[in-house]
């Protein structure tokens, strides 16, 4: 059937099972928007305040569902505004398709109005990108973009479509979406060898990351750990993969991870890295990371093997598949002594924050949020101290229920991401935890959540400083607080009200709980400002470049 390029865009979105896109209209995507309007019953469009918010919303949608998030932006500034969102998705391996308009093909290269070479700009932050030069290629290019975004290690793909191509017509035929191949052939002898290493190990530790979530392998991981009594610690990205409170769950590892999990890695004789990349926030010192262990890495991306830390053995494959195959070769074991030793460390060396009745302690606040919003809630954070406190104390029990910008550490990520999560799961509670710094970067999106009636609860930990940088300044710059003290007079309650949301302020935990209770009943967005002491630190902490021995606990 003859269809315009704009219609073809919508048809392929429908083909790929996309029911919602996030975006912002503009001159070069005006035809795509016209087609979206004609098809509004098939594809829902969410209009954000800013393209960056749309890109984070597409990302948050993808993180919460595992499906590919879609963002649409116009050429030039529209396209550059989604760059941060694309880079954020790229660093955390989130499947996303970004569709940008561009000036007409004959205007490309002439510095035309709102022209940017966005495929050039996004080369290093996409898995791949395309400039569609002929309408004949449009449908298959979009299909290819969806395939690339989801296959192997997921990631963002950008498709740049000049305006004239959206206007032209071409014969369109529906195609079945290609089945995404995550499966990578794995050698049986490699799996056997890994099983032997596990069976021989006295003090094994599993260190797992976001790859377990991408692969949907939480159950398989848990089975292996429970069968062989292998304790496991997770990266920031893998919060929620294992249930909080599980004895084998050592909690987070890394710069702000548990002392006991760092100790377990330090003392382990076998470290199995599963779907993770030894980032500098975990292997803070590459040479001293797991110094006594045989290091094994399982990852779907061959380029991750030995990229940051040299391993002794590795398997390139889908984590789920490898863990499943491992089960037939491993011997059940109780590893009583090793687990008891770790239990002892948890009691003796772990950092335990102390409560204070006069102020809101971050750990108490996060615990209260976690308890009051329930296990099913999706918690979304921005970047900074509140992000680490949330990761440490939010007690997630399910994968895809803790959304955060891990690799890129994008301040301003969270409100958009919260909207994406809420659109994906209207019946689940979405709690957005942020700082006063981060919230100032994306609070414009309050208008979006009000417009669409998304009852997201925002909790601002307001310490009136850029706390994480301040913490570094305190520890490493002799308390020279260069430009991290925010002398802002923003009234968050009034701000929320001005946008059409509800606002609350809390100085104590009791006040917070009262406000949160009200917010839970609201059918509009809520903002709760919580006053936090500016000298609160995220502890424990391994200084950058340091190792387990350098851990700061007070």
């Amino acid at each position: 059937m003859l269809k315009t390029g704009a219609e073809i865009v919508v048809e392929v979105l429908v083909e790929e099972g996309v029911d919602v896109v996030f975006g912002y209209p503009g001159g070069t995507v005006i035809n795509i928007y016209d087609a979206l309007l004609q098809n509004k019953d098939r594809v829902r469009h969410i209009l954000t305040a800013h393209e960056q918010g749309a890109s984070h919303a597409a990302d948050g949608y993808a993180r919460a569902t595992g499906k590919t998030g879609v963002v649409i932006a116009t050429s030039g500034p529209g396209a550059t505004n989604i760059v941060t969102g694309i880079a954020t998705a790229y660093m955390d391996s989130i499947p996303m398709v970004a569709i940008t308009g561009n000036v007409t093909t004959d205007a490309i290269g002439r510095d035309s109005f709102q022209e940017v070479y966005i495929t050039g700009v996004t080369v290093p932050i996409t898995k791949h990108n395309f400039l569609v030069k002929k309408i004949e290629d449009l449908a298959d290019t979009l299909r290819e973009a969806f395939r690339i975004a989801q296959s192997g290690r997921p990631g963002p793909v950008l498709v740049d479509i000049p305006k004239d191509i959206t206007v032209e017509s071409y014969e369109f035929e529906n195609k079945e979406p290609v089945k995404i191949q995550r499966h990578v052939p794995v050698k049986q002898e490699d799996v056997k060898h890994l099983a032997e290493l596990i069976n021989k190990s006295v003090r094994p530790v599993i260190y797992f990351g976001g790859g377990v979530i991408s692969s949907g392998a939480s159950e398989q991981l848990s089975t292996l750990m429970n069968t062989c009594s292998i304790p496991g610690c997770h990266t920031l990205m893998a919060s929620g993969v294992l249930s909080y409170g599980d004895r084998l769950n050592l909690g987070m590892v890394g710069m702000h991870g548990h002392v006991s999990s760092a100790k377990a890695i330090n003392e382990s004789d076998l470290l199995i890295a599963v779907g993770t990349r030894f980032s500098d926030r975990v292997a803070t010192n590459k040479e001293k990371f797991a110094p006594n262990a045989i290091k094994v890495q399982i990852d779907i991306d061959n380029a991750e093997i030995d990229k940051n830390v040299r391993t002794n053995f590795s398997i390139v494959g889908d984590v789920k598949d490898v863990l499943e195959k491992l089960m037939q070769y491993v011997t059940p074991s109780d590893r009583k002594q090793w687990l008891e030793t770790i239990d002892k460390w948890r009691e003796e060396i772990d950092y335990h924050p102390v409560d204070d009745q006069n102020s809101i302690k971050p750990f108490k606040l996060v615990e209260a949020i976690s308890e009051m919003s329930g296990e099913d809630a999706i918690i979304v954070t921005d970047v900074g101290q509140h992000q680490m406190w949330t990761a440490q104390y939010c007690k997630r029990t399910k994968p895809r229920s803790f959304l955060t910008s891990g690799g890129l550490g994008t301040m301003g990520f969270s409100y958009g991401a919260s909207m994406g999560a809420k659109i994906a799961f209207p019946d689940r509670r979405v709690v957005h935890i942020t700082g006063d710094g981060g919230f100032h970067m994306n609070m414009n999106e309050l208008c979006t959540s009000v417009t669409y009636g998304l009852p997201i609860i925002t909790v601002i930990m307001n310490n009136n400083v850029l706390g994480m940088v301040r913490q570094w300044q305190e520890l490493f710059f002799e308390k020279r607080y260069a430009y991290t003290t925010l002398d802002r007079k923003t009234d968050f309650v009034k701000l929320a009200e001005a946008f059409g949301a509800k606002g609350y302020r809390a100085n104590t935990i009791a006040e917070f709980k009262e406000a949160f209770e009200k917010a839970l009943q609201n059918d509009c967005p809520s903002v709760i400002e919580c006053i936090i002491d500016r000298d609160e630190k995220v502890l424990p902490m391994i200084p950058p470049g340091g190792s387990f021995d350098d851990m700061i606990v007070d």
Partner: protein
Amino acid sequence: MKKHILSLVVQNNFGVLARISSLFARRGYNIDSISASPTNEPKITKITVVVEADDELIEKVFKQVSKLEEVEQVTQIDERETVCKELALLKVGAEDTAVSAEISGVVLAYDGKILEIQQDAITVELTDIPSNVDAFVKALSKFKILEMCRTGVTAL
């Protein structure tokens, strides 16, 4: 650090060379030389990259390049086992006949060509495996090299 030659079979798409060189820049790998050319297959371009790297680094480069969507095949080449050539052009100062004769001797020894003889300079060419080109340039550097360029390696 050793020089490694990578031969890439890539899809002949708009911007493919930029994409590959961007990867090298982004990851901090040094390109010694890069050459790209069409092949007998219209949809395929052959790119030959020379990288200075130790064994660990070249493994990383290899894996990262292999990951690019448009890269169909990556092969690490040994210049002595593959048909692999580089062309160098040098203009060497020759103020008198004695120097000219000496330069000609070097060119002859390396099986190079004399392209042009001017009053005070000789322009020479050598097409050979990269290490021989290196040696040739080294041999000529005891004279005054006025200009030099190399094409980068190409390999079948």
